[in-house]
């Protein structure tokens, strides 16, 4: 693995989509498409074989759906991050994908620039969803039973007061710079807090941190 190059696996049942994304991403100097998978089962095998940094995952695939493949891949290994790509921005897809452990969500018709940027952001672990998606995510959570899940709530207790505060702001979709501004601290301090939160809670990235914040009941969807 060349340091600095993001290794990408593309899982989609349509050849045209796989080839298209491969061309678009290989143009980027810091991104390399290392493999393709034709369905969910294939994706799991390819991830085990190639250990990519990022998996571009279509949801609707034969044999095994992208959601299920995402779940198995993220359970299996902490390393690869999954960026879900679909034709429809259905709320249920977004929600299911994030619950399954995806780090980001993008429409297939995104521009080449958006696609490359999303891959970089997800790979860096800084990923958070686009503001529009975050809002819908919150709306989705607000539809659910708001009773927090007890084990999750207990784990919030491991965090310091400051870290809990930062986690709540992550869940609202703020960037590190915005959180720093809000708490009147240096951005580097926020980064340190975020890193500790992820380690303490055993979370993959900021997206999963936000999902955790909602599921544990730390943040209640309101005002959106």
């Amino acid at each position, binding site marked *: 693995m060349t340091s600095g190059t993001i290794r990408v696996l593309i899982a989609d049942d*349509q050849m045209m989509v796989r080839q298209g994304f491969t061309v678009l991403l290989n143009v980027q100097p810091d991104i390399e498409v290392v493999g393709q998978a034709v369905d969910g089962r294939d994706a799991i095998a390819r991830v085990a074989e190639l250990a990519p940094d990022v998996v571009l995952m279509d949801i609707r695939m*034969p044999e095994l759906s992208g959601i299920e493949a995402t779940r198995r891949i993220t359970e299996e290994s902490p390393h690869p991050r999954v960026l879900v790509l679909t*034709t429809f921005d259905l709320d*249920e897809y977004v929600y299911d994908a994030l619950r399954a452990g995806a780090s980001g969500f993008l429409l297939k*018709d995104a521009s080449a620039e958006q696609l490359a940027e999303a891959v970089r952001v997800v790979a860096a672990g800084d990923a958070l969803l686009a503001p529009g998606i975050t809002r819908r995510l919150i709306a989705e959570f607000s539809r659910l039973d708001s009773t927090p899940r007890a084990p999750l709530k207990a784990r919030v207790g491991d965090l310091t007061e400051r870290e809990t505060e930062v986690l709540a702001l992550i869940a609202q979709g703020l960037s590190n710079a915005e959180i720093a501004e809000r708490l009147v601290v240096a951005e580097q301090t926020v980064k340190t807090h975020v890193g500790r939160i992820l380690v303490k809670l055993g979370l993959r990235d900021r997206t999963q941190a936000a999902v955790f914040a909602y599921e544990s009941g730390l943040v209640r969807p309101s005002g959106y």
Partner: protein
Amino acid sequence: MGVDEARHTEPAEPGGGAPRPEGGSNKGWALRGLGLLRVLRDDLWTFVAAPLPPLSRPRRFRWAPHVLYCMIALILMGAVPGELDDDYGLTGGFGMAFGLAQGGAVVLALWRPLPAWWLSLAAMFVTTQTAPRTPLVLPGQFPAPRPPHPTPMPPWPWTAPGIITCALVLFLLALRARTRVCAEVLALTALVTVLSAPAPVRYERTAPAALVIFTIVLLVGSALRGRREARTQLVELSTVTAEERARRTLLEERSRIARELHDVVAHHMSVISIQAQVAPHLVENPPDELRENLDGIRKNALEALTELRRVLGVLRSENPGDPYGIGSGTGAAPDSPQPTLDRLDALVENTRAAGLEVLTEITGEVRPLPSGVELSAYRIIQEALSNALRHAPGSTVRVELGYFPRGLQARVVNSRPTRPAAPSPGAGHGLLGMRERATMLGGTLVTSKTASGGFAVACFLPSPAELPPHDEPTGPTGEKNR
């Protein structure tokens, strides 16, 4: 007065005049009551048939009421002459005539309850007028006391057979006639009874008992009629609901098909939008014109996608039970692509796993067909197989695909089921959807029972084989991409 009386004594004959059982001696009164009388005449002086229908169940005894009435009529015919002879000293011809009248009224009531009622009422009236002494005692002379009668304590004015006859007739009348008519009939019966009631002291007064019985009989009959009418309305209502449901099912089926097809188109569009971005990277230094052109293609594809998502949103929101609607109707967002005939093997395998023996046969040169045709063919076969699973357990199913130059023929034929199928609700919707899919593509779909006790679904979906590549892309085959 005499004329009025005559009308009463022969009610079965169409007289045309207003029935005035009270004897209407006062012309002024008659004029004042003209409106009321006209209503009474319209209601009561009709001979419209209102036959008693046979019972709907139990089937074996559907004619039982009619038989019962006829038997009672025979008994009455036998009993009346004797009674009249004993109690009233009416002998011979009178007795026979009244017996026939009473029995006849009971039988007549089965078809024409109103005239039957007139007949039974007239029989009573004439009996009372004839009994004590002939000739007639005119009502105008009431309430003059009557001379003594030789027989002690006979019933007056209603004889027992008279009450039975009239009660039976009134019961049938109440089953058929409106409540207002029943009320008028009761009032008129009461009036005639009261007018005939003043009797010699030695008679046993039956008027109150008779009127109570008549009232009860009319009430019970009316209640039964009301219940039956309510039930009829309910049946009509549920027929309407069933039609409504069928129409809604059709619409739901159509929008499901529409959703699936839009879904397919949306996927094509997103591929186009990706390819338009990819194309410039495939050539060295692409000219600006090419870039602009491809940008235009991408922009249009994105706009089309936006519209398609909007259409799918509309189609979805009309069907809250299936919010995403682009799957198999499970209500969840679909996580597999819309199927094509490539997936036929998996479908057949699933059906085998569910317990049917499935044979497949593919004839002709297999070629990729437009997504819409493949999707429809897949869905039709899927529905037919699921019908076979539901309705023909243990049968053997043949799935035949025939590729013809002009299109695709699909046949799903199952043999006779080896065990009875469990009843399943919602049967028939599948056939509806299949037909819709075939019709939409300009194809045909035929379903029929087979001679061996099985069921066959056959469809033809037109899809002309692709013309040689130098031709202009034509119609639906132009968008082929698989």
